[in-house]
C-alpha cells in the first residue's frame, strides 16, 4: 500500500465482497436513481466491515457497481472519512476549527500526541488508536471536542483525555 492512496500495482486483483456487504450495497442501490450513485455508500459499507478500504476492496466495488476504478478512487480520496490506509481500532477525530482553537484544542492535541506517541495521520504501534484532525464538529458551545469512533467527547481537559484513552484501552 502506498501512502498516496493510489493503487500500487496493476497486479492487484479485486477481492470477493462478502454476502453481508453485497446485501447492504444492494439495499442502497434501491434508494438511488442510478447505481453509480452508490459508490460512496459502498465504500462506507466496506469500511464498516473491513475497517478500511484496501486496493482489493476498491477494485471489487468498482467492478460490482460498474464504476471506473479511477472515478471511485477519486471519490474515495476526496472524502476524509474514507480511509485508504489501515487505521487503528479507535479513530480519534479531534476538532481543530475556530471555536475549539480558541478554547485550547492545540494543547489537547499536544497532550494526545505525547501520550500516544502519534501525530495527526498516524496510528499507534499497538494498533489501538489513529489520530486525525476533523473540521468543525458542530459542538462549539462545548469546545474543545473530539470523536472517538462514533462517540462525541466534549468540554475536553487534559484529565478527561486520560480517562477517555483509558476507557477505550479497556474495551
Amino acid at each position: 500500500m502506498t501512502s498516496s492512496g493510489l493503487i500500487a500495482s496493476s497486479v492487484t486483483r479485486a477481492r470477493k465482497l462478502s454476502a453481508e456487504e453485497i446485501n447492504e450495497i444492494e439495499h442502497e442501490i434501491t434508494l438511488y436513481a442510478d447505481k453509480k450513485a452508490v459508490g460512496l455508500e459502498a465504500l462506507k459499507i466496506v469500511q464498516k466491515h473491513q475497517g478500511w478500504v484496501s486496493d482489493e476492496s476498491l477494485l471489487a466495488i468498482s467492478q460490482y457497481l460498474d464504476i471506473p476504478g479511477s472515478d471511485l478512487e477519486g471519490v474515495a480520496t476526496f472524502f476524509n472519512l474514507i480511509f485508504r490506509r489501515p487505521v487503528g481500532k479507535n479513530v480519534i477525530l479531534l476538532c481543530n476549527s475556530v471555536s475549539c482553537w480558541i478554547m485550547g484544542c492545540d494543547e489537547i492535541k499536544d497532550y494526545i500526541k505525547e501520550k500516544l506517541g502519534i501525530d495527526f495521520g498516524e496510528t499507534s504501534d499497538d494498533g489501538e488508536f489513529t489520530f486525525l484532525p476533523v473540521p468543525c464538529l458542530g459542538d462549539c458551545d462545548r469546545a474543545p471536542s473530539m470523536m472517538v469512533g462514533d462517540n462525541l467527547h466534549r468540554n475536553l481537559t487534559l484529565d478527561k483525555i486520560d480517562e477517555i484513552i483509558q476507557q477505550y484501552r479497556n474495551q
Partner: protein
Amino acid sequence: MITKPLTKNIDMARGPLNISDYQAVDGYQSVQVIAKGLSPQDTLELVKASGLKGRGGAGFPTGLKWSFVPQGDNSPKQKYFVVNADEMEPGTFKDRLLMEGDPHLLIEGVIIGSYAIQASKAYIFLRGEYTVSERALEKAIDEAYEKGYLGSNILGTGFNLDVILHTSAGRYICGEETALLNALEGKRAIPRAKPPFPQVSGLWGKPTIVNNVETICNLPGILTYGVDWYHGLTKGKDHGTKLFGVSGKVNTPGCWELPLGTPIRELFENHAGGMRDGLELKGFLPGGGSTDFMLPEHLDLNLDYDEITKAGSRLATGTMIILDSGTCPVGMVGNLMKFFSQESCGFCTPCRDGLPWVDEIFNEFENGCGSEKDLEILHEHVDYLGPGRTFCALAPGATAPLGSGLKYFAEDFHRHIKDKRCPYKH
C-alpha cells in the same frame, strides 16, 4: 401561544419525543392541514407570505426559491427535495440541536416542502460525524412511515413521499448545494456551474430544492398556526424566530431560539452571560466562519439580516464566535484560513492556489517571520479570492474574516512583524 416553534419540544436531558408524544403537542398537524385540502400552490403561497428566509447562511427567501421549480404537465415528473444537513460551517452548532432534539419536526417540514414542490422523493444529506442525529432521524423516519405520514397516498391525499437518509463522509464543500448534489450522485463534491440552478436542473438533472435543516423546521409552525402567528414572532423586520449560538470564552456558551430582531447585546449578555472574568470582548464573527468581524460597538445592533449587512457583515448561520482580549486575532484568522485552505475542493485555481498561500503566510506570522510584504499579499488576496473571482462561495467566504480581520486588527498584524513573534504567547 407558541413563541419558540423550533425548540418547544427540545429537552436534551430527556431526549427526543417519539411520534405519539410529538403528535400530542400539535405534531404533524400541518400534514392534517394538507389532508383537508390545502393545495401545493397554496402551501407555497403561505410560505411566501410568511417571509421565511433560508437559515443555512445565504438568507434567500424560501417561497421564492420553491417558485422556480417548473410545474405543470410539461415539467419533469420526478422532482426532488433535499435537506442540507451537512452542518460544518466553523462555529455553527444549531442544526445538530434540531436533529438530535426534535427529529420529527424536520421530517414534518420535509413533507411540507416536498408536497409544495410535488417531490415524491426526499434525501436528507447528513454529515457523517453526526451519529446521534443519524440514529434519531432513522427512528423518526421509521415511525413516520408506520403512522402513514410517509410512503404512498399520505393521509389519503394521493401524495406519495419517500424520505431517504444519506450519511456523508466529510468535506465542508458538500454544504454548497450543487456540490452536495454531485456528492449525492456519487461523484466528487465539486460545485456545478450555475445556471442552470438546481430548482430547474438538480439531482440527476431533475428539478430539485435544497433547503437547510433549520429553514425546514420553520415550516410546520407556518401551516399549523398560520402566517399571522408567524408574523407575530419577530421583534424586527425579518420574520420568525432563529437559533442563535455563542461560542468562545463567554460564561455560558450555548444555543437559543430567539425572535429575529433581538439585540445582539441581549444574546451576548443575557444568554451567553458576557465575557469570562478578566477578559474583554475584542470582536466577533456574527454567523460562522464565513462572516466579517464585528466590534463591541456593534453589540447594540439587532439580529436582523439587513441590519448586520449594513454593518458590513452577515447574519448567516446566526452562530457568533467570540474573539476575547486574550486570544490572538491573527491566530484566529489564521485558523480559519487553514480550514478554508484544507476544505477547498481544488476545482478552481484562485481557491486551490490562493488559500494555501494565505495559510502559509499566516504560518509565517505565527513563527515570527511575517513581513510588510506578506501583509500586502494578504490584502491583495481579499480581492483575488473575493466574490466573482471564484467558482463558488468558499473562497469569498474566507475573505470575509480575512479582509475584516486585516482592517480591524491591523495593529496586531504589525506587532507580529515588529516583535518577530506572536505577542499573545507568553
